[in-house]
């Protein structure tokens, strides 16, 4: 009988990297289902293409660099899904392909693969796409109209050309000067997702369900989304003339809530310490609202998260003190002791 010999401990949790990623996929399917109901089956195709090309890109990278396949951990699916859900529902299909290849090859694999990338792959890819295909990335369709028949509405995305419509974000931005919310902003619509926007971003309820799911299975650290949302709310209060009336519309519109739950919480691009996490997420929250209020774009979540990713290594320089830490004795004293000894 041969016995396994290894270092302690000999028992461990059943949770594996793959299981964490599968939990993420399940949590991401809440906003995905909502997005498909709101925007039709074409939206599902977009997310599917994004996820599939992410997996293929990772396989291709493994093949090119002659390294073992790493797709088994399912993290490429998660990256692809997050990117897909960040895209407008009516983008041409080359957009998710280019985005996923960019996210996986350049942002993730070139830096060493899972856990080693310093920037959020999905956020980086989204910003890259926004700068490269600005027109396509900023044309949002309105939610489906089911009065013509359910099936007809669901498949309409494949044929019909959509006219770019205004999103709540644009309305909020343009009303910031007056400080009076336009009538088009209705909180119930924002909650249910009856607005234009990216596939996964529009339905707040679905995102919150995913949030609850991730908290139940302890996949994400609550400190990150909570600090991000709190800082965003506070910034909205300060930066908009409308004050508190702008808080909920800010939190519920655009990619802020989606970013809080699925992007700020990314393991490899968030700090390791509790204090670092709070500073990182709060910084991202403040930047998001600053960008929304003052930049040329309506949305700021992805860019804010990306910018804060860059200071994570700095935040990780702060090392917590061990339990029972005592200040080291002053050097002069030890020198004297050494002499006496």
């Amino acid at each position, binding site marked *: 009988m041969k*016995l*396994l010999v290894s270092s302690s*401990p000999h*028992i*461990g*949790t059943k949770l594996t990297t793959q299981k964490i990623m599968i939990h993420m996929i399940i949590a991401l399917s809440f906003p995905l289902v909502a997005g498909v109901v709101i925007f039709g089956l074409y939206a599902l195709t977009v997310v599917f293409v994004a996820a599939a090309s992410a997996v293929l890109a990772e396989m291709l990278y493994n093949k090119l660099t002659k390294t073992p396949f790493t797709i088994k951990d399912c993290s490429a699916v998660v990256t692809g899904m997050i990117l897909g859900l960040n895209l407008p529902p009516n983008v041409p299909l080359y957009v998710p392909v280019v985005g996923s290849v960019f996210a996986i090859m350049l942002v993730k694999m070139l830096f060493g693969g899972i856990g080693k990338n310093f920037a959020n792959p999905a956020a980086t890819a989204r910003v890259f796409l926004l700068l490269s295909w600005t027109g396509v990335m900023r044309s949002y369709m309105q939610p489906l109209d089911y009065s013509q028949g359910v099936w007809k509405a669901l498949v309409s995305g494949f044929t019909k050309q959509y006219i770019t419509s205004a999103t709540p974000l644009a309305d909020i931005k343009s009303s910031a000067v007056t400080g009076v919310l336009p009538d088009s902003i209705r909180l119930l619509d924002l909650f249910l997702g009856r607005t234009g926007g990216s596939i996964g971003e529009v339905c707040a309820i679905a995102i919150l369900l995913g949030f609850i799911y991730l908290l139940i299975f302890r996949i994400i650290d609550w400190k990150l989304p909570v600090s991000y949302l709190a800082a965003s709310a506070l910034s909205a209060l300060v930066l908009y003339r409308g004050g508190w009336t702008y808080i909920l519309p800010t939190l519920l519109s655009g990619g802020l809530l989606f970013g809080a739950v699925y992007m700020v919480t990314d393991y490899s691009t968030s700090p390791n310490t509790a204090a670092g996490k709070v500073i990182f997420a709060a910084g991202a929250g403040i930047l998001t609202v600053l960008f929304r209020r003052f930049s040329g774009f309506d949305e700021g979540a992805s860019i804010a998260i990306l910018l804060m990713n860059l200071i994570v290594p700095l935040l990780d320089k702060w090392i*917590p003190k*061990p339990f029972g830490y*005592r200040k080291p004795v002053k050097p002069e004293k030890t020198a004297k002791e050494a002499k006496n000894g």
Partner: protein
Amino acid sequence: MKYTFRRGIHPEDNKKLSESCPFEEMPTGSKVYIPLSQHIGAPCTACVEPGAMVKAGTLIGLSNGYVSANVHSSVSGKVLGFEMRENAQGRKLRHIVIENDGLYEEENLPPLENPTKEQIILRCKEAGIVGMGGATFPTHVKLEAKNKINIFIVNGSECEPYITTDYRMMLNFPKEIMEGIGYIKTALQANEVAIGIEANKPDAIAAMTKELTDPDTHVYELKTKYPQGGEKQLIYAITKMKVPDGGLPSEVGAVVLNISTVYALWQAVKLGKPCYSRYMTVSGEGIKRPCNLHVRIGVPLSEITEYLGVNEGYVKAVFGGPMMGFSLASFKPVTSKGSSALLLLSKKEIRPIEPTPCINCGRCASVCPMNLMPMMTDRLILKDMIAEAKKFNPMSCIECGCCAYVCPAKRPLVQSQRLAKKLIRERKI
């Protein structure tokens, strides 16, 4: 409110396997092999020659170091000679081989009536009492603490999964343990005694509470959490005092001993019996009949597995608890003063040993009771960046194993911490 410390983990305790089994006497074979080193310090010097006749309790190994303890024969019979054998850690050690005559004649020290502080400490030294939870730190060294001791803490938490010896001892010998606690209180001249027991052992709490007579002795119900029985964690849970980093519990006026040690000390004082036998749990899915045994020191583990029977399909044998014990390469090692358990674990029970890349999830840091960042030490030590790794305080690691337990990537985080400690010491960084 239950007393506890910060962070830590909640592993499945698997105590059901053996907790209802009363102690059973393990038959001793024809030969015993007594290791001359059963403590953390220098090995003992043998003080018997081959051919000498000894009895159970005869001094055969003389302690010759500060943190070292005497070794006694566990059977009566003839000394056959010396043998180099592997211990559980795989280190070759000198063992004294004794032929068991089957009579178990005893040679005890004189029992002590109303002993004084000095008598108890001396007896502890003579009888070779060491910390029997597994660390095997000589008990007389703890009792001789220079600092004023305010509180003596009895560790009845038994937070390691599977192990049920201390639990059974609290049920079977509460009076004896209470009397032993009294001796130690005298030896330490402590003002207060706290008996900490985890909440998952309500009948042990009840049994010990029933025997309380001293007004300064109290039973504390601890939260069931690992590593509740870690010395620093236990002291914090009960007194909220933090043992300084790199320091000893006596620096905050506390001394911790576990139940088995208290009982061994009671036997040494009251009965004059030196430490040559102990209680241990044999459990895991690989054991046909999991139980709690009373074993003499020096019995090869193969005899125990033969006696209780094994289920084929076990892949790992662990000497000690599953969180901090050693995995065995064979069943040749013998029972010693520190052997609290022998576990035969199936593939289903063990943690996979193939690591995958760190995903930087931070779970290790979030459970570390010492507030360290194991992922950083792991990452840096593998790149041989030792000075950088030292900044993450691996020297403070208590090797409890919480980090590796929760790691979804199954990284050997404790091993990295140990490697870091070793390299820092070797290269004097």
